[in-house]
């Protein structure tokens, strides 16, 4: 099938691209501004393929300054978008450990002790210290908060109503079509296949969609973007070594909760120093609350779900949340390398936008508006080329899109942020100091880090729990857990003092119930497994299996027979955590882990995240 522009992935970047493009494709008098090249006489044929079963599935709550979004919608009325509200109050809470299980360095223990001692004169309450000052570079007070799911649905509705572009959800894109170094389109995923991808009843091979321009916005774990990175390599010095998995719940707050709409709470310090948290209060007594587990949290049993449950129960948060009900749940991988993760932005026949194009600002913790901005810039560039009748060559795209990007605040700010997080790669304290240094000097001074790949730095459980659990103890637990097909983290965390979670059936529930009640996770039949263990012999040897421990949906599980873990597609939320949480790697390519994360159908069925 031939199109003028084929687009991959519908998120904020694609929202910005299609919103700007669709407005520019039509003149003020309603006549088409440009003609289709593939269907002469028709308006340009633009289609966006989205992997998830509907728009806005599998994303997150967001607080954003929204500069670019407001640029696209000068009359933006937040009341039109469910769950959106202006920011009213921002708080930064340093959470102390009320349990005593957190693995805190000496510096933090001293800080905690000091805060407790000075409780009478400092804003210390409920084991939390309210940091009296939020640095200007982190403030979002002029912005708004929203459910990105609802926002994406709203944008999708605006676009579909325009009739200028089409968006097809539930259609994963298998790969880019690359000929002589140029991208000539994409190939959709095969349907009617068995788990291994072999033709089955109703087989329909993935169709080739050819287009002079392919716009790639499939995010940091998107298979199309990653395959282009593999084919073209990364620009000198650029890499994807820093990641995080974000997991959250949307909660109907209890009637007694006094948090005001528009309140934003950032937390740090608990359940482990490396884990950051957020809580946003939407209209209608609804909040989005969650945590980030970053790749530099060197715990091999980094279960986001278990840590989320402890974080929710921290007294400073639980006082607001207790008695509430989870109504949605989800998880997503975030690319934390920022500008240093920027791939080749353009080439012959393609352009990259959004998070996968390295637009996230790791200093201001902002990515949605930046992603939107990249889409706007590309659309402006594309319209310029179309109107001038120019081809979508690397050179032309550089002269239009990349030029706009380089000359904008986006570039300026991402340069400042480039090294802001490096300190965290060595320690929490260095990270905090590094962020402050980068922020106050506008990126001129930074704390150095340790830029290794996640697999190079992840210790074994024996190393991580050294001095707390004996190697024999771990071996025994591992054997028991393997026999039961269970992951190791619960046993290990229980052993070092984390209390078992008492389910209330409302907010605290089993991981599987969170999937069913909150994530409504499902997978349609007729698609291949999208998680593939590439090097079974490496898996056999791997005692760490971070993939099992971090899996956000318990879709990857320990194999009771030993060796290669098992994968259950019906539980996968497509967060992509397994992609960067492999403790092994491709023997031929140290940048590539041992798990292939391909295009796949299904996943979360909630647009409230």
């Amino acid at each position, binding site marked *: 099938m031939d199109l003028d522009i084929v687009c991959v992935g519908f998120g904020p970047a694609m929202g910005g691209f299609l919103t700007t493009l669709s407005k520019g494709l039509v003149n003020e008098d309603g006549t088409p501004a440009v003609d289709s090249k593939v269907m002469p006489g028709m308006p340009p*044929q633009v289609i966006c393929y989205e992997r998830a079963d509907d728009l806005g599935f599998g994303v997150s709550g967001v607080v954003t300054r929204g500069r670019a979004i407001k640029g696209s919608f000068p009359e933006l009325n937040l009341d039109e978008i469910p769950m959106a509200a202006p920011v009213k109050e921002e708080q930064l809470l340093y959470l102390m450990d009320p349990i005593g299980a957190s693995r805190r360095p000496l510096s933090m223990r001293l800080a905690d002790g000091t805060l407790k001692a000075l409780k009478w004169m400092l804003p210390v309450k409920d084991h939390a210290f309210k940091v009296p000052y939020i640095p200007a570079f982190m403030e979002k007070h002029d912005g708004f908060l929203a459910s990105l799911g609802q926002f994406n649905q709203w944008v*999708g*509705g605006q676009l*579909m109503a325009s*009739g200028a572009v*089409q968006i097809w959800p539930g*259609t994963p894109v298998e790969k880019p079509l690359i000929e002589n170094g140029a991208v000539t389109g994409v190939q959709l995923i095969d349907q009617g296949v068995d788990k291994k991808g072999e033709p089955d009843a*109703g087989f329909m091979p993935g169709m080739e969609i050819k287009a002079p321009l392919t716009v790639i916005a499939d995010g940091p774990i998107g298979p199309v973007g990653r395959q282009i990175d593999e084919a073209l390599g990364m620009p000198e010095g650029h890499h994807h070594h820093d990641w995080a998995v974000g997991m959250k719940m949307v909660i109907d707050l209890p009637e007694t909760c006094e948090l005001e709409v528009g309140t934003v709470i950032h937390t740090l310090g608990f359940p482990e120093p490396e884990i950051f948290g957020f809580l946003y209060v939407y209209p209608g007594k609804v909040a989005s609350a969650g945590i980030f587990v970053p790749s530099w949290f060197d715990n091999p049993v980094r279960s986001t779900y278990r840590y989320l449950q402890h974080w929710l129960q921290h007294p400073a948060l639980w006082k607001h949340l207790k008695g509430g009900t989870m109504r949605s749940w989800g998880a997503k991988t975030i690319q934390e390398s920022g500008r240093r993760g920027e791939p080749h932005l353009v080439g012959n026949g393609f352009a990259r936008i959004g998070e996968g194009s390295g637009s996230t600002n790791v200093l201001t913790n902002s990515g949605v508006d930046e992603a939107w901005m990249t889409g706007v810039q590309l659309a402006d560039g594309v319209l310029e080329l179309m109107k001038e009748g120019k081809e979508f060559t690397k050179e032309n795209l550089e002269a239009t899109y990349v030029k706009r990007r380089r000359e904008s605040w986006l570039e300026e700010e991402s340069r400042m942020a480039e090294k802001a997080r490096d300190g965290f790669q060595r320690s929490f304290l260095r990270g905090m100091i590094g962020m402050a240094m980068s922020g106050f000097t506008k990126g001129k001074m930074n704390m150095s880090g340790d830029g290794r790949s996640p697999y190079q730095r992840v210790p074994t459980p024996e190393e991580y729990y050294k001095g707390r659990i004996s190697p024999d103890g771990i071996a025994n637990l591992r054997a028991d857990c393997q026999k039961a097909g269970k992951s190791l983290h619960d046993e290990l965390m229980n052993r070092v003092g984390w209390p078992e979670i008492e389910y209330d059936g409302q907010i605290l529930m089993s991981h599987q119930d969170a999937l069913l009640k909150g994530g409504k996770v499902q997978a349609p039949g007729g698609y291949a497994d999208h998680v593939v263990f590439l090097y079974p012999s490496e898996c056999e040897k791997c005692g760490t299996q971070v993939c099992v421990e971090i899996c956000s949906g318990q879709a990857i599980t320990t194999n009771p027979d030993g060796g290669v873990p098992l994968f259950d597609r019906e539980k996968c939320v497509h967060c992509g955590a397994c992609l960067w949480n492999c403790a092994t790697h491709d023997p031929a390519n140290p940048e590539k882990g041992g798990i292939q994360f391909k295009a796949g159908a299904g996943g979360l*069925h909630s647009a409230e995240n």
Partner: protein
Amino acid sequence: MSELQIVVCGGIVPDPLQTLAPQMGPTGPALKNEMMLPAVLDPWAWHSLNEAANLAKKNPGSKVTLVSLGPKAKLQQVMMTMAQKVPFELVALDGPASGFTESAEVAALLAEAIEGIPGLDKSKLLVFGGWESASRGAGTTMQVVGEILGIADQFLAVDQIDVQADGSFKVYERVEGGKHQVSVCAGAPAVLGWATGNLPEPPNNPQIGMMNMRTIMPSLQKAKPTQVKSEGLKFASVEQPQQRRDTKIVKDMPADQIAAEIVEWIRK
């Protein structure tokens, strides 16, 4: 084989996986956060659309039209997914998709929309729909559509239709006890309220999507705003059942003993 004009009545419902709760509004009960929940084509209506497309394919020259009543924004969302599945044209009515609306009123709107389909030929008309919906769950809409259109042959809970060369067709309707009643109808016009049918889920087909969108987009843009009246219908209350039981959890009991307990319970 004969040319058929198949009109499918298909509403939208919240994705069945969603958590649903009612709330009382100024005009009666409504679903909490209805506009925030992802929607799908009603499952039974979807089976009927799938069957319609299959039947149209087997009878060249046949045409399938989907008539759908729902909030425009939600219809748009659902059509993004549906349009990739099977070929159809859309007649969209912009109105409520709530299960608390009056089925007879909904039926009147659907019948009016069907009458308004340009070139409608009742001698070739098969009106399809779900036998019930996943929202109202009443199974009382299709019959009224048929009555208004003056169609005397109606079938409910259909799992199969076999159209013969002379235009007559054999219908398998679900009856009690997992059985089917088999009838032969002389031919169109007829109303068929579908159960699940027997067809597999078709794959997403980009070419069908492209083709469908040429008519679906304009239809959505000119979707007629409609009101569904519910005169004389009052809801004393709408509640979620509170069904929490005190579950006695029996662990570590040998299988033999459990079996004995179960058998004793069954025989009690």
